[in-house]
């Protein structure tokens, strides 16, 4: 009886699904219509709306520009109206899709759809806050965007970028910073974690806390304190330390390597604790039996580290390396806070993101150029990391295994 009932319900549901299918199709179409409207805009949507409402010149804010004396055709006019009302179409589309699921509530509980429902918050965040800006950035990198208009200029932004000397300074600084921080922030945290993890270490809880506290501090506050420490006044901390060794005070932030030293020190101070945490977690997952077996074989602690801990920590090392490369190339706040603003003496503290910030936000009419900088950075970081992950064997080489 029950089985009969369930079959009946299932058939009913199927019929309902089919009958209401047009709602979801309509919803998707409306949504797509609104999104197309969004992408046919050029520059600011708010400015387009205002210009449309006051029926002034639209061509600055719309992908299709007009020549002198020309006006939009009837069809184009209808399309412009739909662009103006794009929010209504998009909201309407979403509501219709939602309505479909309200009517067919059983779908939400089906095995096919439920997982996507749980993923929905992430998918939406990804689409709205990552994919949409990314697509727009790619579009903008081929445009010259001024205060009032956006114009297609092909690869000119990229040409300008690769012929600009300051860009290479920024790349040099970022790469140098990344290499140094990776070289310091992997071996030392590993060593500290190994020491803290060993049973013979006393007060390890205290040391863990001390090493971890900087991670919790704000980079802005830390940056200001580092700026004061590295100040060129005689009374500044770093100059006093030099004084202890009988050395003259120097202009810390006005020298190429001393400025780099300040930035690297800030980074190491802040992130050592975090990387220790990763390695501690890695070490905890190594079974004790391996060490015991090594003890039986008479291995000393160096051998145990080399043959057990290091190989088994490889996934952790790869993870730390990957995020360190990304963090190094994307560094900006540290430099900004240490130098007090985005312009450092002779650009010693200028990073790629600082360069992007300079053109995108500090200057006008350079949004397109800054977009190109961002894409070059993204491509570079991806290439380096993909290469690194290939070399370490995380990606590729699966078939042969």
């Amino acid at each position, binding site marked *: 009886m029950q089985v009969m009932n369930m079959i009946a319900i299932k058939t009913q549901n199927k019929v309902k699904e089919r009958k209401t299918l047009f709602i979801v199709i309509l919803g998707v179409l409306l949504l797509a219509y609104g999104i197309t409207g969004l992408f046919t805009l050029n*520059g*600011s*949507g*708010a*400015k387009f709306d*205002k210009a449309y409402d006051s029926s002034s010149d639209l061509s600055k804010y719309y992908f299709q520009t007009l020549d002198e004396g020309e006006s939009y055709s009837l069809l184009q006019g209808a399309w412009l109206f739909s662009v103006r009302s794009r929010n209504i179409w998009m909201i309407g589309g979403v509501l219709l899709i939602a309505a479909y699921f309200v009517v067919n509530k059983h779908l939400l509980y089906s095995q096919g759809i439920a997982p996507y429902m749980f993923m929905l918050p992430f998918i939406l965040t990804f689409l709205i806050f990552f994919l949409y800006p990314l697509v727009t950035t790619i579009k903008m990198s081929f445009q010259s965007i*001024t*205060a*009032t208009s956006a114009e297609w200029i092909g690869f000119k932004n990229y040409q*300008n970028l690769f012929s*600009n*000397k*300051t860009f290479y300074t920024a790349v040099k600084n970022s790469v140098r910073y990344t290499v140094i921080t990776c070289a310091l922030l992997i071996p030392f945290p590993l060593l500290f974690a190994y020491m803290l993890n060993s049973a013979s270490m006393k007060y390890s809880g205290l040391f863990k806390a001390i090493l971890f506290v900087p991670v919790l501090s704000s980079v802005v506050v830390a940056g200001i304190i580092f700026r004061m420490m590295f*100040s*060129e*006044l005689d009374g500044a901390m770093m100059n006093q330390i030099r004084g202890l060794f009988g050395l003259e005070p120097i*202009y810390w932030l*006005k020298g190429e390597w001393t400025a780099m030293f300040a930035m690297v020190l800030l980074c190491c101070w802040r992130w050592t604790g975090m990387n220790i945490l990763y390695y501690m977690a890695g070490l905890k997952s190594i079974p004790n039996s391996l060490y015991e077996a090594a003890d039986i074989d008479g291995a000393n602690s160096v051998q145990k580290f080399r043959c057990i801990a290091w190989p088994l920590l490889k996934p952790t090392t790869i993870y730390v390396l990957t995020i360190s490369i990304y963090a190094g190339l994307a560094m900006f706040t540290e430099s900004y806070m240490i130098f*007090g*603003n*985005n*312009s*450092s*003496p*002779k*650009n010693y503290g200028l990073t790629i993101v600082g360069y992007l910030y*300079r053109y995108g*936000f*500090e*200057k*006008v*009419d350079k*949004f397109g150029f800054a977009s190109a900088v961002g894409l070059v950075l993204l491509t570079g970081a991806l290439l380096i990391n993909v290469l690194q992950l290939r070399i370490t064997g995380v990606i590729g080489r699966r078939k042969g295994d």
Partner: protein
Amino acid sequence: MKKLLSLALVLCMVLSIVSFASAEEAATKLTLWTFISQHDAYYYTLADMWNEQNPDKQIELECVTLGYDEMHNKLKVALQAGEGAPDICDVEVGQFPNILAYSDSLVPLQDYMGDLMNQLVESRLNLYSKGGNLYGIPYHIGACVTFYQVDLLEAAGIDYTTIVTWDDWYNAGLKLKEYDSTKYMGNVETSTQWQTALMITQLGSDFVDNSDEDNPVATINTEAMLKAVETQQKWVEDGIAVVCPGGQVDTEEGKAYVATNEMASITMPLWYMSRFTSEIGDACYQKYAIAPSPVFEVGQNQSVGLGGTGTVVVKDNENYDLAAQFTVFAKASKDANILIWQELGFDPCNKEVWAMDEVTHDPDNTYNQYFLTNAFDVLNSINEIAGVASTSISPTINTYLDTTLWNEVYIDMMDPAEALEEAQAAIEDELF
């Protein structure tokens, strides 16, 4: 009972909504962004004055103070997007050309100014104008003067009133060195160019040639620049001037250094007075006299208007008309200009105020008490206050000078002529 309670609750809510609504009706809300916290109090005072004088046009002002970079960048993005900008905003003169790119979104203020247009110093209004429209109203002239530390100079046997030319100033420096070799006569700046701007205007030049308003040209490798840089480099070489800690005296480190009283003179715009009173404090109280700056040759302009902040009104917003009226009242009216001196310690643009003895020589005024001479006596004695151009390429030029050129010539001691040629080429390279 439950019903009664819920009824009371509903009544409360309705009442509160009604009371909010009536409050809203009375005053228009205006938002204002500024990047200097002292300006807040000033605007609130003026908002109160405005509300007293205009019962039918009440405003409710909300000032937001943001960091210098943060505020200007936010404003630019908001103007680019066409939404999110405040009603009124303070814009620093160095950033003004960037904001002028969005002049379509700003309110031309000359229609609101009326007669006040003629009362304010024209060269300052020109800084904030484009295509015949005035988009920003200044606080002050920012006339460059020299602050002399009288005790120290007298102890070294120097009478600061006899210093007329930069040569006199240099010789006084040599004398000071003999008296106490740890002291300096002055400083050179590596992260800005107040002093250099004064020097090159005295030599009839500027950082930029804007005879063609649409195509300004960077002029860095000029004779005037060479002379200004060579002069200052020699000061550093001979230990007359110190390379200012922090890049210039208007930074945290710079102010801390001024407070040590190791420099016998500081050449800065007059608004630096307020840094003395509010930030440097007791360390320099009653130690400094204000005097006209030296010149290369007698007859050259003794001062130049530097720095400054123009207040703009954003057209994208609903209440821009009222915002513009208030801004003109708060920045250009005579009452406002008196307050600009009394509260902020700036040299107001309304020259009528300069002649009002009861205002300028008020013995209770903080600024009059702090310094040994009166700022307005100096202002009235200065032969000419020149101006520097501010153009669309100025921000790019300034970035290069402040990050690279000054460091090359005053720290690495690079040959000035060579450095200037390099700077000219590098700046032209940046202007794509």
